[in-house]
């Protein structure tokens, strides 16, 4: 069952197109909105909660346009990307305030939300003194107090330390499994990989890919990877490497080779034994184009 439907959504600001002709649906479970900075993720999410009005196309949440139906927002929670909070409030006050605006006055709801994000020890401190990661947790807690059916989280893991990051990911996965629609935007592939059943990849305001994490991974395995290998005898290693099935081409430099691998994983497995057989010593291996953006650009170019 789809809870959110996006139909040919476009959003532009003056001459700048932020989101272009996106059609997709969202339902229960965790969906990752993946894309480099400036891809249009935030604009898309803001359109979903009615903060921005579509320039073209439409958005419906539970069958209604969110910017014209405030009542539907009672079933939605939104965690904005911006770290701004009411700095004079304590975390407990902030969470209770958000709960109250959603019609929840039971203090137990606030306490449960505080426990969920592991913020009990800092709950009575002013938000102004919080680190970015703690603010994110307070914002997530504030979004959970009224037990929404739909959670829309814009880069919620930004600034969180690794332990809290893992806990938040676990929380999102649990919420998704309980039947809630959870949308999480991120520009970090492996984070989305850990929590999302389904991924929407965006670049330059367009939909680059949509599907399960596995489907996206399959698309990405086809991306030729450029890898620099620093080695004592570049020509000898280049000749040995070219004999394997995983390499498309090799460029020899003074103290290194640059390998265009057809299959990066296969290349990684064979590099060490090949080097040993060739009698060379590798000092460093590093990818040339591992950024998410380069992968997305490949996906867009391949469409």
């Amino acid at each position, binding site marked *: 069952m789809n809870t959110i439907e996006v139909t040919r959504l476009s959003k532009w600001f003056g001459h700048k197109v932020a989101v272009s002709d996106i059609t997709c649906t969202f339902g229960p479970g965790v969906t990752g909105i993946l894309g480099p900075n400036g891809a249009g993720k935030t604009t898309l999410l803001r359109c979903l*909660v009615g903060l921005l009005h579509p320039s073209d196309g439409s958005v419906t949440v539970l069958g209604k346009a969110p910017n014209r139906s*405030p009542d539907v927002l009672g079933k*939605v929670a939104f965690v904005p990307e911006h770290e701004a909070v009411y700095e004079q409030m304590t975390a407990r006050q902030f969470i209770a305030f958000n709960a109250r*605006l959603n019609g929840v006055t039971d203090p137990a709801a606030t306490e449960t939300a505080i426990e969920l994000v592991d913020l009990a020890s800092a709950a009575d401190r002013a938000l102004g003194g919080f680190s970015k990661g703690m603010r994110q947790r307070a914002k997530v807690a504030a979004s959970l107090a009224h037990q929404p059916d739909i959670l829309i989280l814009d880069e919620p893991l930004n600034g969180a330390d690794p332990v809290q990051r893992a806990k938040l990911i676990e929380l999102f996965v649990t919420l998704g499994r309980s039947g809630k629609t959870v949308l999480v935007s991120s520009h970090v592939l492996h984070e989305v990989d850990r929590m999302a059943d389904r991924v929407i990849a965006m670049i330059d305001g367009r939909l680059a890919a949509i599907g399960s994490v596995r489907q996206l991974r399959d698309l990405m395995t086809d991306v030729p990877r450029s890898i620099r290998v620093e080695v004592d005898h570049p020509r000898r290693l280049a000749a040995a490497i070219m004999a394997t099935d995983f390499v498309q081409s090799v460029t020899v430099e003074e103290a290194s080779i640059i390998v265009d691998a057809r299959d990066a994983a296969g290349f990684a497995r064979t590099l060490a034994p090949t080097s040993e057989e060739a009698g060379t010593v590798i000092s460093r291996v590093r990818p040339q184009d591992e950024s998410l953006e380069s992968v997305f650009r490949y996906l867009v170019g391949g469409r």
Partner: protein
Amino acid sequence: MSAITAIVAMIGKRLIGRRVALILALLTLAPAVVLIVRDDGDQTAAFHNWVGPLLFALALPLVALLTSSAALGEERFGHTLPYLMVKPIARTSIAGAGWLAATMVSFAIGMVGVGSAWAVAAVRTGETGIGWGAAVGAAITMIGYAAVFVPVGLMARQSTLIGLAFILIWEGVIAGAGDTLAVASLWRTGLSGYVAVTPDVPADVLDALGNLTPGAWGAFAKVLVLSAMSIAGTTLLLRHRDLVKE
């Protein structure tokens, strides 16, 4: 506590907790200081002459501008507006809550000036009721200015400059140039309520009214109608403008 009350309380606490609120409160003390320093002549007339022009024409508009424009303006430009907008609350309620919080805080700060001058004059003259008119006038003035400056603060990052231009050019020069435009001046509308409630107001204060007829109820009605229009306008802004795009 309802959602609207929660928003009014939140905005009110934020506005009153700012350093500028303290500075504005100190600014409004000027008439009281003048009354203390100039301990000569008719103290009743001195009270009206200093509270009238100094407080109503200058201090109260400044208090209202710097307070009201920040009511929803700081929500928007401080990036906290989404916490209010993505909630099951009518946009009219958010607009109304902003206006009410701005009015209450502006009035509270303005009353520091009115109250202090009132206290000094009451001690000097023995007339304990001398400041009622000023308090009524201040309430009318703050309601009127909140109606103007709350939507301006929401619309424009440069709301302080726009508001200063309004106070100095429109209220100060244009509305004061001829009698006919005085009816469109907000501080004069407040002053008309003040004059209506206060017996024996000096001629200098009456002159500032232009063609405005003194009347507290009429003045209240005027600023309340203006406020209703303002809340409707602010609601439209919240409903139809993309206020969160930075």
